[in-house]
């Protein structure tokens, strides 16, 4: 039936059966979604993955399709690293925040125990420690730490 085909069947130029595996997840009003997924994974692989998810609850199958679409889009935008680039960026962010937090906690410990005069001296040395840490982290952007 030509009328009411899902985005996948439209893209693949075939009839859209009533039990089309793609239809619930690729409505015809958003053709780009299936195009992206098809480009990265291929229709057959997506169909296989959806079949393997059949035992799961419908909302989980829908989530799986959403994440596939997200990863496909990430890969199209960044053909070398895909969404691994986002993971790297977040791990760098975590590393930076943890460094900053360690510095602040050291400052708190000093301020709490010694008072203002000594805290100024310590602030200078913790700034130096932080600069050293920043220098070393920029040389080796290791997202596996």
């Amino acid at each position, binding site marked *: 039936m030509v009328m009411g085909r899902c985005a996948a069947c439209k893209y693949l130029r075939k009839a859209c059966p009533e039990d089309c595996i793609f239809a619930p997840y690729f409505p015809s009003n958003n053709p780009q979604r299936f195009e992206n997924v098809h480009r990265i994974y291929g229709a057959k692989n997506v169909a296989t993955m959806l079949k393997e998810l059949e035992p799961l609850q419908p909302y989980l199958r829908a989530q799986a399709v959403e994440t596939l679409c997200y990863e496909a889009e990430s890969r199209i935008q960044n053909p070398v690293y895909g969404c691994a680039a986002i993971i790297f960026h977040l791990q760098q962010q975590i590393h930076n925040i943890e460094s900053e937090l360690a510095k602040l906690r050291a400052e708190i410990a000093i301020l709490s125990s010694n008072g203002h005069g000594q805290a100024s001296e310590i602030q200078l040395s913790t700034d130096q420690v932080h600069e050293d840490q920043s220098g070393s982290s920029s040389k080796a*952007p290791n997202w596996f730490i």
Partner: protein
Amino acid sequence: MAGGNGTSPCASCKLLRRRCAQDCIFAPYFPSDDPHKFAIVHKVFGASNVSKMLQELPVHQRTDAVSSLVYEANARVRDPVYGCVGAISCLQNQVSELQMQLAVAQAEILCIQMQQESTVLPSQPIDSCIDNERTYFLNNSLPQYLNFPSSSSSNVIHDSLKMEGIFGHDMVS
């Protein structure tokens, strides 16, 4: 089924049961001693899609591309629902939590400094400073990459820790 120059076929040609040409696009990245690597990439992406992706990239970027494809494929096989998006969600939560701790620490420093520097102004208890900072922080939403719950994302992150030294430079485009 030897390669074009008589050497052993690469893992991809072995799996696909075809002759491994001398200019085989997969051979540099899928050596025959690690068949699992290509098997998992083929399962998730398909050999022809991987071939197309590699052909569209300059040679010096293909190693990293293959590494990230293997990573994503492993994540998807381990977590068929969320894949490596689960890891992203988990890391985002970690970032949010750490930023909150950072804000609390900053507020604490401010309160301590206020108490130490001023004897004239009425002193504010440290706890209420921290609570005010936390309330402000919670009321201002952070930019989120996405809003997926994480499932087995901790396994995906742990595996990233094992892949030491694969990516040696900035990956963010």
